[in-house]
């Protein structure tokens, strides 16, 4: 990646969940840390998120879900990315997510999952250190 291009992150709210506090806070924290942030707004289908990610040419996607539907929505995003031949966007997630689901989500390609109490600085550092796009 060239030095003059900011890292682009899509913060996305999949599904019907309206809890957007975390998504907005993380979006702002990334922006303050010098990232280019695109926030999708609420009620996005996995299809809409993947198409926005491709269109906006993002380096990372942050998925936020607090409705308990993460086990359907996050893997669906991963599946659609794969189907589109996209394998270099770093996907991370956050929400009210039980520990046992975190390992399952990681197994299908979600790089990291944050639960309530997580630090925005940890997420920012993680994304910086783990970007796969060059």
């Amino acid at each position, binding site marked *: 990646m060239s030095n003059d291009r900011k890292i682009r992150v899509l913060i996305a709210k999949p599904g019907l969940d309206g809890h957007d506090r975390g998504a907005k806070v993380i979006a702002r924290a990334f922006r303050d840390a010098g990232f280019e942030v695109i926030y999708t707004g609420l009620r996005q289908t996995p299809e809409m998120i993947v198409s926005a990610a491709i269109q906006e040419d993002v380096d990372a996607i942050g998925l936020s879900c607090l409705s308990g*539907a993460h086990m359907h929505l996050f893997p669906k995003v991963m599946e659609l990315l794969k189907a589109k031949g996209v394998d270099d966007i770093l996907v991370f997630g956050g929400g009210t997510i039980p520990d046992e689901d975190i390992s399952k989500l990681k197994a299908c390609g979600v790089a990291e999952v944050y639960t309530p109490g997580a630090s925005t600085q940890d997420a920012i550092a993680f994304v910086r250190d783990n970007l796969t796009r060059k």
Partner: protein
Amino acid sequence: MTFDPKDLQHLEKDKARWEEQTLGSHLERAPERSDPFTTVSGKPIRRLYTPLDVPNLDYPEDLGFPGEYPFTRGVQPTMYRGRFWTMRQYSGFGSAEETNRRYRYLLEQGQMGLSVAFHLPTLMGYDSDHPMAAGEVGKCGAAIDSLQDMEVLLRGLPLDKVTTSMTITSTAAVAWAMYIAVCEQMGIAYDRIGGTLQNDILKEYVAQKEYIFPLKPSLRLVTDTIVFGSRHFPKWNTISISGYHIREAGATALQELAFTIADGITYVEEGMRAGLDVDEFAPRLSFFWDIHNDLFEEIAKFRAARRLWARLMRERFKAKNPRSWMLRTHSQTAGVSLTAQQPYVNVARVALQALAGVLGGTQSLHTNSMDEAYALPTQEAVTIALRTQQVIAHETGVTNTVDPLAGSYFVEALTNEMEEGALEYLRRIDELGGMVRAVELGFPQQEIANSAYAYQRAVERQEKVIVGVNSFVDETERRPIPILSIDEALQQRQVERLALLRKSRDKDRWNRAMDDLRGAALGNDPWGKDLLMPRILEAVKAYATVGEIIGLLREVWGEYTELNII
């Protein structure tokens, strides 16, 4: 009946002397831990409160007696000496059958009222077989698609004895119609049906974000339920004006109070615009507060809210019935304060928050369960949460007298500042053209987003200590706790149930009911006058589903698009 100015002058001198002689040398030897000290909302707190901090406190004007204007000390004359608050655990998950079993269990355990949690598709007006419902069925609450599900949800429950709260807003009219229809089947007369509908649409645009329609038709629907309720349901609170979600979205205690009261003002104005006398419906307006970690700030918020609302209702809206002046409230401990780290510690947080709610004079209370940073609670976790309320009620003694903290210089000063701060926000909102306009402009949304971000930064900079999160961290202590999981096969069962329902119901009755509703929704009658509620009730009885009824209204009214605010 205020302090004598001469006494205050004397006290001021004495305080200066104390600062010089006693405090000064002490601070040199032992400096304080922090500067400034602030509440969880970031409000600075002084070292010491004395009469100098409440120089104009006028007992009869500002506090009065419980059960009387301005209700600062509580809405009932005896408060918890008469009866405790209603212990009402918000609950619902999976299927109607499972949730019905949980309700029976909670009632057996001493719970005093029901509180229905619906799953997101119901809240958003989609049936379980809609593509948007994929993965969401039964997750955040019970899957209720039609009257058929509601019949199962409420089977065998003593609806003539307990009151039921339904946490639902955009689709509240449909859920209420279903509840009424089940009560009719049970032979319970309208005037004996007691409960509360959340129905506070403004806070959806501001914070909770479960909006569907644009603001105007949404307000029309809410007003319609207020009109319908005021005519037929004397024991039903048609709206629960909710600060809870505003706070959870990141607002400070003051913003929660101010924006919620501003929403309340709007509903009063809409009700009056629909031709109702303020005293016809204001007694059925109820409120819902969040109870966060800062004990005294929360208590002050409850007390200020009662006084502020009483004054507004009497002075601004000229209400004459004392019941119209009375701010009755449900409250819930702050979900957002629960930590995923060291989850057992949440039991302590919840207990202290619940104590604040009780000292604040709540009428009804939900205590969160320790496992809710992960998922909906298990039965064991809910039982501990309910027992926490029972301990406060029966063991602590705080219920023995009314408003025990009144007269504390600190609590009264905080109460005053809370009321003054809220009035300042109300003035700004009035200047913008009222709350509806303020919401259209994104004013409360931006204020809340700013506060949420400021709070997060304060936590990450260690300016605020969260035990187990940024201090006293002990990863080895993070033991797995039991988590409730929802049966993934439920969605398929609901889909099959819906298919069967659509085949077996009376098609003609369904057609007639839906046509009738469409006509009413299209109508341009004065606000609230064409009464959508009776038509929704008929559609529900014809076994029209939530998705069908709301789908029709979506077609007629369109959908709301949110401003992109971060």
